[in-house]
């Protein structure tokens, strides 16, 4: 029997280590999280022409995303409605139809069954093909990012993202023509629970200085000072951390967007030119975070770093293993040379052989694997950093933490994790829309802090 209140203690900011290990918890995650949330599928830039397709996963389900002949985007399960074999075995491509290798059933780019070998003679013309389409998945896009959802009762993608979309717009639409993803994705296996990297990206500014000491020391630059946590830095003045409805969240290190790019002239110039555009289009609060370095997770399993520009999906493969897929984010209106350099820098730091990526794997694997031990697993994990130093902010939606080093968005992630794992339906979740942030009780944190600051400034 899964007791979510016991597994995630919102009041005391702890989580049971069982959430990284137990099969029954994982099975419920597939049903209630991966079965009900919007999951990243592809970017529209990968699917421009009719017939362009990309094969991916939603939880453990294999899914094809395709541009249909009428121009719309479709997604459906990659499993023949006859005996279940795959109907597409390539990573991507362009195709008029998908043909099952087993008996030759043919499906159109809308998933409809369009041909069955020997249907007149062997099915005696009695097969109702209209009832044998590939099961379809809801598809919606946000600023070119295509998501799929298995649940018809889930909110729209825009509502699911909610205030998180307000932040994403900063660079998805604020700076010009928008962004695209450069692939094909790198793919690798990491033997960890999917939530370990998801929580790390949603709000772990804390590990940067220690885990990545070697890479930061070698790279130098703005973030070099963090190496080994040696520098005495005023962390509460260097950025913020945010959690929004539905568990999304991020941390931002102010003005550090290109902090780990070695060759950066093109990107620096792009940021410089577009910063005033963001301010004019979206206002100063978002301009202030536009040139920051962002670590983010869109609940549940889509994480990225804006600034470094790596974009990742953690596909679960059981409770103890994930497939990591990594693309690079570039602005469409960057010149080709700048795009190339951004791709190179992103991959060099956070690709499969990346200098920073290589620091993270062991931590994530061991944080999972150690829970094989029952005594270990009977303990809790702690995420209380910055409790009380967070609250609603006059300029930024969601709950805003005092610093990019803090665990505000960990707490937001696991608060929603507990909510969606407990809820029988989306209606139950919707009923909490007004009071979800009650677990962050210091409503006056920013009011007091900003007042103190302006008072300090007056003196």
């Amino acid at each position, binding site marked *: 029997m899964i007791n979510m209140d016991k597994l995630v203690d919102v009041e005391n900011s702890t989580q049971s280590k069982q959430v990284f290990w137990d099969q029954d918890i994982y099975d419920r995650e597939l049903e209630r999280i991966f079965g009900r949330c919007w999951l990243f599928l592809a970017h529209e830039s990968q699917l421009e022409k009719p017939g362009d397709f990309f094969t991916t996963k939603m939880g453990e389900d294999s899914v094809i995303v395709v541009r249909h002949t009428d121009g719309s985007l479709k997604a459906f399960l990659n499993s023949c409605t006859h005996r279940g074999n795959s109907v597409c075995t390539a990573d*991507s491509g362009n195709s008029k139809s998908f043909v099952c290798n087993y008996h030759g059933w043919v499906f159109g780019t809308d998933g409809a069954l369009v041909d069955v070998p020997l249907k007149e003679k062997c099915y005696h013309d009695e097969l109702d093909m209209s009832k044998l389409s590939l099961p379809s998945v809801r598809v919606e896009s946000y600023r070119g990012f295509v998501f799929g959802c298995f649940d018809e009762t889930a909110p729209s993608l825009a509502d699911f993202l909610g205030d998180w979309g307000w932040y994403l717009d900063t660079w998805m639409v604020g700076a010009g023509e928008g962004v695209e993803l450069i692939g*094909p994705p790198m793919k690798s296996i*990491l033997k960890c629970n999917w939530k370990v990297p998801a929580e790390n990206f949603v709000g772990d500014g804390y590990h940067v200085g220690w885990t990545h000491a070697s890479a930061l020391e*070698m790279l130098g630059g703005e973030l070099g000072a963090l190496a080994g946590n040696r520098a005495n830095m005023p962390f509460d003045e260097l950025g913020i951390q945010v959690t929004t409805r539905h568990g999304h969240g991020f941390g931002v290190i102010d003005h550090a967007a290109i902090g780990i790019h070695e060759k950066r002239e093109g990107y620096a110039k792009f940021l410089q030119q577009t910063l005033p555009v963001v301010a004019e289009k979206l206002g100063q609060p978002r301009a202030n975070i536009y040139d920051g370095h962002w670590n983010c997770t869109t609940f549940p399993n889509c994480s990225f770093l804006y600034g470094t520009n790596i974009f990742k999906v953690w596909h679960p493969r059981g409770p103890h293993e994930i497939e990591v897929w990594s693309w690079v984010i570039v602005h469409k209106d960057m010149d080709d040379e700048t795009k190339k350099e951004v*791709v190179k820098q992103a991959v060099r730091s956070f690709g499969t052989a990346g200098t920073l990526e290589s*620091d993270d794997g062991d931590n994530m694997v061991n944080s999972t694997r150690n829970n094989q031990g029952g005594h270990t697993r009977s303990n809790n994990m702690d995420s209380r950093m910055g409790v009380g130093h967070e609250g609603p902010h006059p300029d930024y939606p969601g709950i805003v933490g005092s610093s990019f080093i803090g665990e505000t968005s960990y707490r937001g992630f696991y608060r929603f994790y507990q909510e969606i794992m407990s809820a029988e339906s989306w209606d139950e979740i919707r009923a909490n829309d007004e009071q979800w942030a009650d677990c962050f009780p210091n409503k006056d944190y920013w009011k007091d802090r900003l007042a103190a600051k302006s008072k300090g400034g007056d003196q």
Partner: protein
Amino acid sequence: MHNIEAKERVSMALHYDLSQHSYQEASLLQNREFSTWLETFVAKDVHYWMPVVERRYVKDKRSEPTPYDMAIFNDNYDEVKQRVDRLGTGTVWMENPPSSVRYLITNIEAFHTDKENEFVVLSNFAIIRNRSQLEHSEHVGCRRDVLRKVGDGYQLVRRKITLDARVTEDKNLYIFF
């Protein structure tokens, strides 16, 4: 960049020389003598490249990856040097205790090129990494190198690494190929 044409096969003596060079290189890497490897075996104008290769249908007409596309390694000399330097910082927690990395280099074929002092060398590799207690990973693929005769030895000018696996079954590829 990596399409320097392979001409006629080299002599038995030269093939022996180039093969020994490959084994020496493997020996330096598996003995963790990365700085020596970089300084003596790698040319300043090296391009060290591992493209991402998708699984595509045979009829797919899209072009092969170029160094301008997504690649796991896409390094010039300074970037290879940074990888080496990082391993020397003393704060790469993952390499303490160090991994054991074994190189099996086979199927060496060597060819002349248009330049008298440069050779195309093809090889297959199996690189096996053992770490911690039971952690074990294998990376199999091939390399297309361009080696330049420098003094008594050779230096790496181009290396295109092709992994056979689409999905890397390892937590990272922070090893030299």
